[in-house]
């Protein structure tokens, strides 16, 4: 009788001290700190802004700069040609006046 009592006591010790678990429980038992999916707020769908059509077409800074540079270059070249033409006319009039004075003398 004493042996049976000890046997039962030892089995109780075995059950309380060991911590084996079943495979099924391991795969199905959810963790305590899982988030509740019902508490997650739904996001409203994406909507186009009201004045989206009024916005200017997007141009990059580089292309704008390039266009400006080309414009400047054209303007500069035009000025230079005008200046060159003007100086040529002045030279011609000087020559003619000198030649006229020589002829008169």
């Amino acid at each position: 009788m004493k042996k049976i009592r000890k046997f039962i006591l030892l089995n109780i010790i075995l059950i309380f001290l060991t911590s084996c678990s079943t495979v099924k429980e391991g795969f199905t038992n959810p963790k305590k700190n899982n988030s509740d999916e019902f508490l997650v707020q739904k996001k409203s769908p994406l909507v186009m802004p009201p004045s989206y059509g009024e916005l200017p077409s997007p141009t990059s800074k580089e292309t704008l700069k390039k266009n400006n540079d080309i414009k400047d270059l054209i303007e500069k070249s035009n000025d230079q040609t005008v200046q060159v033409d003007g100086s040529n006319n002045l030279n011609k009039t000087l020559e003619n006046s000198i030649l006229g004075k020589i002829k008169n003398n």
Partner: protein
Amino acid sequence: MTYKNLSKTFFINLFLIITIFAIDRISKIYVISMSNKVLVSDIFSSKFLNISLIWNEGIAFGLFSFNQNYLYDLLTIIISIIIFIIFVMLIQQKGLRKYALSMIFGGAIGNLYDRIFFQAVPDFIDFHIADFHWFIFNIADIFITVGVIFMIFCELIGINDQYEKN
């Protein structure tokens, strides 16, 4: 002479307890770190043995796995009391039973440590034959089971009495 014998058995038992606790801790730390690295609970799998980490909040066979904190604490207190009783028995007992109780005590404090610091005990050894899986256990469980079987044998066969006589 008796003092010398006492001290010798004391150191053997202490060494046994510390060794069991250390083996258990190292194995658990290794498995937890591996599972964190792989990011999956299944670390190793073969035809008969799987190493997959599972956290058990209850006792043997996954019993008393409560979500309530106070029930978990109550279970931890009960386990602590049982461990204390085993410790008292360990001091009182002589012979082979002392070694058996040392094994139980070493394994039990290994599992209690996890219960206190991790709020659950990690189990990872999964023996299986085809689809039949045995309960997943850890190193501490092995030592506790071996210790209890050893104690039962001591009681049934009476090896301890012969050992004490010698």
